[in-house]
């Protein structure tokens, strides 16, 4: 059943017509022509379509467009304020946190939500928070580097202290180190 809805995306209102079954991802990409969110699997496994729904990261392939009415939707296109990049975007660029770039929009959206919730996230907490976003190019190290550097940068801005320079690969410690379960036991099926 076709219906007219209004989506609030990145602070702008998009009046669009959708089917009841239309996914938020398709509404964003095909109706709003905001193609930053990517489709990698359509089953919520890869995280490339992650957007923020009232600050919560969601895989937009599993959300119905109609259910997003009345909520603030933020996509990768709405992250930079004019010319000013978000510190997470800047850090991904500077520290090699992307290669092919297809996972990058989703990875950045999840990272922003993660740092909003936990501004002082440790390396382990960053790894834990990004487990739903798959990247096949980087091996993840430089993504974790980037989110950690962004956390320092954002923390510095809040405190008014200079940006912390990073670049190394500090060894991991703690209980989450290389936890292969993550609730999803590899090959256990």
């Amino acid at each position, binding site marked *: 059943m076709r219906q007219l809805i209004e989506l609030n995306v990145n602070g702008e209102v998009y009046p669009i017509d959708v089917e009841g079954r239309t996914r938020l991802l398709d509404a964003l990409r095909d109706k709003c022509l905001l193609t930053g969110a990517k489709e990698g699997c359509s089953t919520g496994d890869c995280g490339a379509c992650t957007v923020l729904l009232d600050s919560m990261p969601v895989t937009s392939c599993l959300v119905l467009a109609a259910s997003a009415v009345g909520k603030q939707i933020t996509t990768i296109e709405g992250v930079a304020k004019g010319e000013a990049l978000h510190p997470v975007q800047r850090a991904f660029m500077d520290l090699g946190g992307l290669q*092919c770039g297809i996972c990058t929009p989703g990875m950045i959206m999840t990272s922003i939500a993660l740092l909003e919730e936990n501004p002082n996230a440790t390396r382990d907490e960053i790894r834990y928070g990004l*487990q739903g976003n798959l990247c096949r190019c980087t091996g993840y190290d430089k993504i974790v580097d980037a989110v950690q550097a962004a956390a320092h940068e954002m923390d510095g801005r809040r405190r008014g202290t200079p940006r912390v320079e990073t670049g190394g690969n500090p060894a991991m410690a703690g209980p989450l180190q290389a936890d292969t379960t993550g609730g999803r036991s590899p090959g256990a099926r």
Partner: protein
Amino acid sequence: MTATETKTTTTNGRTDGANGVHQIGRSVPRIDALDKVTGRAQYTADLHLPGTCYGAFLRSPHAHARVVSIDTSEAERMPGVVAVISAASIARDLAIVVEEEMHAARRVLSLFPNVGGKVTYHGQKIAAVAAATKELAEEACERIKVEYEVLPPVIDVREAVKEGAPLVHDETKPVDGLDHGPFAAPTLFNIAGQNHRNEGDVDAGFREADRIFEDTYVIPRAHQTYIEPQSTVADVARDGSVTVWTSTQGHFAVRSNLANSLRIPLSKINVIGMTIGGGFGAKFGGIVDTYCVLLAQKARRPVKIIYTREEEFLDAKPAPGAVITVKTGVKEDGTITARQAWALWDTGVGSGGCYATNRVKGVYKIEHFKVDAYDVHTNKPAPGAYRAPGAPQATFAGETQLNRICAAMGWDPVEFRLKNMREGDQIAFKETLQAVADRAGWAKRQSKTGPNEGWGVAVGEWTNGAGPASAVVSVHEDGKVHVFYGLMDLTGTDTAMAQIAAEVLGVRYEDVTVSRGDTNSAPFGTASGGSVVTFSFGNAVKRAAEDAKKRLLELAADHLEVAVEDLELANGRVSVKGNDESLVTVAQLGQMALRSKGGPIVGHGSFASEPSATTTAAQIVKVSFDPDTGQVRLRKLYGSLDVGKALNPMACEGQMEGGLVQGFAWGLMEQMRYAEDGRNWNPGLLDYRVPTTLDFPDIESVMVEMPTKNGPFGVKGIGEPPIAPGVACLVSAVADATGVWINEVPLTPERVLHAIKANGKK
């Protein structure tokens, strides 16, 4: 360059070149990073051409069946359906084919199975539909009626070669078999290709040995799992000329595939390579682009086909699995006297794999070496390349067995390798292994090993090829430099090319822009695969920049009224040597050129092929395992890579780390699984597991620089080798931890647990 001149650099503490003077060696951000972090980069699926309709496929639910009938009439009548193609429709369209075109026509006709013909794998395309929406196209596919006569499939290569096994392709002739080895038989069946290599005399070599080891290794098919699925948009103009927007590693390769397979003149095809969301060897065309063009020819509207993730697993080009037996003779003093390998590669309905068996030899001095390897047909899709194609499988067998030999004979695996490694001009096998061993503290590892923990080491290699490449470098009136060519950037090569142009022309990397031409506008360029492009295009861009530099210096010499030899070009200006006052900027020269006799400043560079030198990837892992659950965890990871010259250390590390994780993941968790009836068992990311952030620890990377003389600034191709050692490295570490050698991967918890229990350990 000798081995002693090798410079080992640790790139964790990065430098940005010597005061910004050098543009190579800088860890600059990717040239496309801004577009990618803001969502502006245009991938194929992001295209929204007016009037676009959407393509979908009907696929075989059976792995092996005869097609009794296909009825597309109901689908064709559906409102909103604009094109339906099948073997019958293609045959109708080709009815006027004349005799000399039959060979080409056969290729088109083989795109779908004929009625009376066979489907040979689960998920094979039967027909395709283009319709106003994707949902409508899928619904139309469901309305195509197909009758099958189901046939028994063959899934395991060891069964497929036996007499009496179902023949995947009825026309495949039996071949003479071997009178020795693990699959000795008078005749072998379902053979798609063969590779026999014989160096020295292995029988004599084995007679010299004090001990002989023989092991069989089994590795499954793995999917490259690029996050962007295969995707193409095609449009056909009234005059029949074709435009294709596609996700590919080689747009010129796509153009020639289309020209050959669809009998369209090359000049009537323009391929636009969009930003690519990962390829790793699987995106050279033929999976969706051909069908997309056929649909667009019928629809006379743009057609868009985006594969689903399930289609990726059912019907793309995954890496072949293999069963490899290795026999090695060793003297008590640790000398390898002979090595022999037999292999069956699971190449599904296609071929391509068995040549990589030669890599079982590794980087070692082995006088007597013999290979008998076969590509074997099974009822699975044809294989493709996956980063260093064939190397992870062969290296798994070769390197794991070396570690088992070391364990059995009491040798340290690093020392044993150093003793047996080849040496030579422009190669750094030993230095690369030593570099990672030093970083990991290998010699002192025992003091860092707890209960249920173990260490593994392995070495892989790759020698980049080379291919035709061409570039145009222009200097504009604002002093900025532009590079234009037909290079598909997979891994950061546009960035490396900008750094090369900047270095040669004495400007900053930030002052260089790069654009990729489509196949109509750019000069030919080899596809991005096999680690060839930084080497090949790097030479072309360097030559083009040098050509532009020559022109700059000539203009400057004229302007400053001195000889060219007295000039130097640096920091965006040309000055007279020893006289800093007398100078002209590159921007001024760019302006002067417009009014000069020679016109604007443009440099051309072309490159065909020159040999490179082998690069090495060495890796060390520390693992732990849980004796109750069998779960293996990676605790520490170290990788080294001989990059020749690190144009961009950050990008080199990125290549190394990404490849390393893919290699280890193949050993730890990845496998395409097929049921007894031949159906793909895990066509999704929930069941085909690729690593998440939680599966791997941080990686400590070490770059080694042993330049090769034909590479631009000494560069070697580095994309491939880091995937090679992982499987062997992991399996060996688990053996060190458990005392059990598990010769089949992936090391799932149940496999590890069963192996330990079967061996009565722990």
